């Protein structure tokens, strides 16, 4: 972190702490002991983000936290079957949560406890589910090599595949989600009219864009390598990875228009070693202060507490997918649709990809 960013972080955090003295000490209901195992997506960046996020939770409550990775429903299912669940809190993607719910692996979120700590009206109601509450939303955006196209890169997915206006090499995720959504938007479907997906039309649209995609990306970490080496000029890439590379000085630019937003959730396995303390941590993670602190450090994600954005500097707001201006015309992944159609689409996708 640069010195300026650190100063900005302090400047943003100080007035908040002064304004909310009641939160400096944890209520009695939040005391506990022992250790919580949080299963997250791993890596030093995520661990740092989560440490900033929970802040002084261990000091205030006496409950320690340690991290493992990676969220995996099949693994949880097997741990549950053999009666040895290791995770207390899991950061599941939307359809992973639905998959875990199908097998009855999750405990309902204790909203009464959350509201003891965080006023209900601060939380985004669309992220409050029975078995999970919003952790982060992460975005897939249109990004381009600014050395090639300057600031005038493709502004939507139709332009993204316009090979005359943008001759160059293209990369997308090698996954049907969000490739189907991207294909449909490229075919002229408005972001809010994607669902329910017309699967036949989506694959017909994929046939049109497929030949224009030079490489399909398997792992999120590949974006760093692709950007640093200018292997491609146009990408439907991870917002977090792309912004981080731009901050490192790579000449890339992106637009939030028609970006694809997917929601993840904090969930608690039903048979977790310490469900009660896990509820306390999840509630604590809903505090605006912690969310703001992690956004100051890694301004790439959307957060459940709507007031987390209050008082953030302009420069940070410009990067945040949750900032009102950036969230104007986005496509939100419908986890339920994917849960219902995954089996059908996945096989067809593999079939399609293996013929490319």
């Amino acid at each position, binding site marked *: 972190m640069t010195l300026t960013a650190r100063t900005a972080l302090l400047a943003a955090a100080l007035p908040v702490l002064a304004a909310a003295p009641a939160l400096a000490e944890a209520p009695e209901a939040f005391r506990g002991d022992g250790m919580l195992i949080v299963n997250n997506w791993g890596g030093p960046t995520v661990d740092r983000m989560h440490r900033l996020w929970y802040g002084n939770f261990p000091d205030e409550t006496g409950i320690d936290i340690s991290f493992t990775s990676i969220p995996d429903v099949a693994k949880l*299912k097997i741990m549950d079957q053999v009666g040895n669940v290791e995770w207390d809190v899991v950061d599941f993607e939307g359809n992973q949560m639905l*998959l875990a719910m*199908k097998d009855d692996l999750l405990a309902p979120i204790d909203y009464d406890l959350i509201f003891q700590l965080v006023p209900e009206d601060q939380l985004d109601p669309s992220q409050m589910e029975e078995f999970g509450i919003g952790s982060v939303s992460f975005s897939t955006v249109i990004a381009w090599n600014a050395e090639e196209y300057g600031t005038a890169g493709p502004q939507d997915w139709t332009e993204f595949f316009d090979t005359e206006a943008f001759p160059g090499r293209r990369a997308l995720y090698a996954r049907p989600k969000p490739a189907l959504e991207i294909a449909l938007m490229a075919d002229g479907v408005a972001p809010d009219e994607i669902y329910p997906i017309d699967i036949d039309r989506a694959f017909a649209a994929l046939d049109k864009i497929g030949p224009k995609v030079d490489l399909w990306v398997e792992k999120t970490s590949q974006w760093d390598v692709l950007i640093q080496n200018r292997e491609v000029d146009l990408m439907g890439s991870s917002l977090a990875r792309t912004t981080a590379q731009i901050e490192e000085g790579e000449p890339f630019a992106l637009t939030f228009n028609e970006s694809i937003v997917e929601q993840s959730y904090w969930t608690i396995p039903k048979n977790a070693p310490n469900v009660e303390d896990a509820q306390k941590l999840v509630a604590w993670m809903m505090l605006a202060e912690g969310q703001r602190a992690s956004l100051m450090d890694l301004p790439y994600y959307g957060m459940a507490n709507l007031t987390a954005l209050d008082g953030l500097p302009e420069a940070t707001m410009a990067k945040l997918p949750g900032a009102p201006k950036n969230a104007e015309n986005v496509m939100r992944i419908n986890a339920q649709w994917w849960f219902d159609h995954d089996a059908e689409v*996945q096989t067809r996708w593999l079939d399609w990809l293996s013929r490319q």
Partner: protein
Amino acid sequence: MTQIDATEAGIARLRPEERRHGATAWERQQRGLTLSLMALPMAVMAAVFVLPLIVLLWMSFGGGSSEGFSLKGYGDLMQPVYLRLLGFTLQLAFVTTLACALLAYPLAYLMVNIRSRFAAWMGMVLFVTLWLSFLARTFSWIIILQRRGVVNNLLVNTGLIDQPLELVYNKFGVYVGLIHILLPFMVITLIPAMKAIDPAYVRAALSLGSPPARVFREVYLPLSLPGLVAGSMLVFTLAFGFFITPAILGGGRAPTIVLAIRDQIQTLGNLQLAAATSMLLLVFCLGLLIIYDRVSGIDRIYDKGGR
């Protein structure tokens, strides 16, 4: 040191009363010892190899799922896409094995037969790569093969080509990465097999007037075959199940059956289908083993080469 008389007569002289049943008692004791020594390894083998396979078989028929037992896993498998993925994966494993064998054979031959510092260093370099993570080596190949990578920059800057070659994010890149990663395994299995070949056989054949090519074909190659067979089986099995290297270096153009298993588990949570697919892979590998057995005899792998 006194000479111990270990002849039968000597033993007979020592313990005449045990002589009549001596041989059977010895055999019985030997068998008991073998069994007790085998018990632990057998138990470990059963626990970590056989048991998981039985569980996998059980799961492939719907064991542990909420729907109960069925043939659904195998039914879902009978789709053209899975057969195509299986076909490609077989091709990938076969070509990789062949290339590894062709590259590793001369390499191992040099390392065994030329005793020099060079051979020792070659071995070091080869085995050090085994310590590095697959992922790191996979990304290293990207750095070398990509459009602005080492190879392309060299070729373009020296004017040999105008446009960078497509060396990675296609099947070619996958083969390069897989062969590089699996080559040491082939060399490692070839070296002991070649070391066990008695050089006297080769010298004898040569001194009797056989041309070198024929000596190699009829003496050296057959004697090194067990090593080659063992190495090929190892490389084939590893290549068959490799997933992250084809996924990254292939740029989506080399989808393997293992990729399908990954999706079946992580995205679909369909453990039955994943187990059924895994059983299919297992059957193919076992089939291969049986073919090898017919061709060269599986027990020859455990031969000590030229004896």
